[in-house]
């Protein structure tokens, strides 16, 4: 196979950071080449240079032996490099066809709708990316929107496809479909660069992997000849324990009891009569495909959404009608799914974010006046013990990386010494090191006899941590299985709504 895209000694320096340090990459025709690395390893900087968004300080990029210098993405597109960003750049109100041709519409002032839709239909057939060109993008699922983005790239006659963290926003089924799409494209000989920090996906789909760490490319290996453990080690530069060690432990009294809970958002009932309990010293995992009511359920337990009917009982007290503040002070901590929208006030300093839940209580405040020293000391302590970087307590939360933002939330919620911690997607978008750290903290709470309700879309996370696993589908709890015995197949079936036969 001939080399298609070659990158030699590419270096990019930002003020104070060496983002890419003599990076090398070789993409062959017709291969899926994964770039694997932790958050902040320099993956994004690299692809942005390939795509012309950044200009390298030194080094070279060549396509089919021809050296390239892009000063804008437009030139990269012309050269045949196409990129699908993690966050889509689509206009929801326009149709699929309109979105694809936007910016390089054929014809002049008159927009030829029928003709364009036909072109897009042909294109989608050619690349096996089935989609209805006349559908409105706003009505499509995330997975289909991504398909539109990929088609957009091919409409512009791309010869190389770069996918930046393409699975981050997808449901497991959509990931599956994306992988099929990638494989079909490979059959057609289109080389793909696949950026990810998820080991299993990289292992499944790629032909070769280039691992990046701290701005450097540390190794390029054949995927078939390596193990996830080896890749993980290359990624973080140290031995990583992939298996969680969880000592057996008997659960104590119930801390949280949910009885026949119904939650509605707008007119739609998202949770339709769910009952379960979470006990002291156990991690209760709630598995389910995104959009099946798990997050509405959690919001109703924490008081962010009102319950339509049913009861929420916390340590023997009915808190169904209590407000968020009362539930928080009673001992419920909550790591929300969306850290930007709920978990942090991004324009606040870390000091303020660290006390977001308890700012009005002693020792942080008294008689309505905030105590700066106590707040700063608290921030110093948490920032130190949770290794939040940068270690500047007056930094603005917005300027932290995703992993460190999540650490701020985790630090705040765990340090409150809650009786119940609800963690919704606590490791979403984080790298191996941070994931491990968060898992350790959850296990620590469990060991201390606290109750943990873990809601996650990642089955592996649920399976490795939970003592009991509840599966939610379409707002109903399908079953509660003991963590050690549940198999991936069982859970998968339940998640798609297939009831298991009664055992025994």
């Amino acid at each position, binding site marked *: 196979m001939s080399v298609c895209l070659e990158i030699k000694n590419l270096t990019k320096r930002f003020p104070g950071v060496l983002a890419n340090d003599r990076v090398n990459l070789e993409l062959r025709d017709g291969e899926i080449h994964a770039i694997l690395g932790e958050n902040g390893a320099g993956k994004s900087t690299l692809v942005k240079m390939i795509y012309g968004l950044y200009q390298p300080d030194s080094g070279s990029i060549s396509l089919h032996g021809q050296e390239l210098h892009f000063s804008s993405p437009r030139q990269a597109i012309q050269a045949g490099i196409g990129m699908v960003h993690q966050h889509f750049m689509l206009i929801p109100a326009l149709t699929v066809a309109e979105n694809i041709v936007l910016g390089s519409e054929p014809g002049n002032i008159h927009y030829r709708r029928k003709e364009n839709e036909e072109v897009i239909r042909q294109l989608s057939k050619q690349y096996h990316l089935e989609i209805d060109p006349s559908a409105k993008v706003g009505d499509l699922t995330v997975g289909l929107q991504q398909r539109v983005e990929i088609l957009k790239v091919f409409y512009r006659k791309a010869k190389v496809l770069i996918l930046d963290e393409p699975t981050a926003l997808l449901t497991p089924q959509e990931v599956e479909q994306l992988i099929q799409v990638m494989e079909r494209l490979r059959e057609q000989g289109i080389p793909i660069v696949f950026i990810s920090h998820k080991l299993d996906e990289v292992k499944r789909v790629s032909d070769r992997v280039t691992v990046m760490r701290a701005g450097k490319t540390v190794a390029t290996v054949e995927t078939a000849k390596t193990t996830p453990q080896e890749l993980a080690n290359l990624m973080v530069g140290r031995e990583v324990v992939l298996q969680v060690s969880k000592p057996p432990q008997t659960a104590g009294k119930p801390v949280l009891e949910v009885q026949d809970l119904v939650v509605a958002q707008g007119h739609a009932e998202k949770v339709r009569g769910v009952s379960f309990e979470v006990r002291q010293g156990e991690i209760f995992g709630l598995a389910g495909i995104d959009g099946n009511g798990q997050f509405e359920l959690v919001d109703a337990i*924490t008081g962010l959404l009102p319950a339509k009917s049913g009861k929420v009982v916390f340590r023997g007290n009915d808190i169904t009608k209590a407000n968020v503040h009362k539930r928080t*002070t009673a001992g419920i901590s909550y790591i929300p799914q969306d850290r930007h*929208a709920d978990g942090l006030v991004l324009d606040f300093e870390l000091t303020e974010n660290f006390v977001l839940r308890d700012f009005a209580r002693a020792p942080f405040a008294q008689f309505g*006046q905030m105590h700066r020293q106590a707040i700063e000391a608290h921030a110093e302590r948490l920032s130190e013990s949770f290794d939040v970087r940068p270690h500047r307590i007056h930094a603005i939360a917005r300027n932290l990386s995703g992993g460190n933002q999540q650490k701020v939330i985790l630090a705040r919620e765990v340090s409150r010494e809650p009786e119940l911690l609800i963690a919704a997607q606590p490791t979403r978008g984080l790298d191996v090191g941070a994931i491990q750290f968060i898992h350790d903290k959850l296990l620590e709470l469990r060991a201390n006899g606290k109750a943990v309700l873990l809601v996650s879309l990642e089955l592996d996370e649920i399976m490795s941590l939970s003592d009991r696993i509840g599966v939610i589908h379409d707002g109903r709890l399908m079953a509660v299985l003991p963590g050690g015995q549940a198999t991936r197949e069982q859970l998968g079936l339940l998640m798609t709504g297939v009831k298991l036969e009664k055992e025994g």
Partner: protein
Amino acid sequence: MRRVLEGLLTPLVSIIIAIIIGMMVMLATGHNPLQAYAALFSGAFGSTYNLSNTIASAIPLILSGLGVAVGFKAGQFNIGAEGQYWIGSMAAVWVGYSVKGLPPVLHIALAIVLATVAAGLWAGIIPGLAKALFGAHVVITTMMMSYIAIFLNKYMVENGPMMEKGFTPQSPVIQNSAMIPKLIERTQLSWGLFIALAAVLVVYWLLFKTTLGFRLRAVGSNTRGAKYAGINVPLYMVLALFISGTLAGLAGAVQMLGVQQRLYDSFTSGYGFTAIVVALLANNNPFGIILSALFFAALATGGQSMQLVSGVPAQLTDVISGIIIFLLAAKKIMPVIRKKWRKHLDLATERGAQ
């Protein structure tokens, strides 16, 4: 410290650009810009008298600017400070002339308390509750309420209950005991200055040192995050508007008791509208508001003498403030320009290296 300097950068650059554009306008219309600006400056700061008047007209700007800033900080775009100013003025003047036999300090205090509460309720009840309960847009409601207040004032002094006997549409003069004494005689500068400065300190303390301020700012920067933090978001929206109105009402009260001493029939004071610009230029920083209020006050007082000395119409100062608003609103463009500039430099050095 660095943050303070960075905060000063945008307003200063905006002011400088606006002044330069003002110069070009003067040159184009055949005036001498240096002479005009010199006249403007000396008209604003040139003598004790001028300086006192500049500071005097900064007082209502500081107070109503603080009001707007508190609203902005809590995400409530209260642009009806003008109306709240008039509500405060009416209440203060009414207490000022109708209540008799109180000792001075008490009389002033009573007038101020009533004025601030009235103005606070004016902003808090209708716009505040409409926002909190039905999500009505504050910009619209405060603006509408503003016109109601302005015309209410007109009615009060034109054959309304507050009109003085006679033919001129104005209210009776307030009692001597309700007058805030002058700081410098024969100028407009009263002890109200210290009320304004105290208000700056109080607002700063409130916003940044109290749990109330924490709540207001949290609601202002992320309502969902505030809800998650256990804050009663609608309540603090209403409260933000109430406090905001209170300060605008205080501006009216201090102006009435310290300077005007009676209500006249005037369509607007302009203070409530300029207050928006004052808060914007200061980026809602209470201490910055002192400076930006002084700046706009100087433009207003200096503008008159500029017109007398150099013949440049005083309206030119409106042009300058307009440009400043425009530049501040466009400040998001600055990073873009900076980026382009850097790219340009990069290319230049690259070519140099080859």
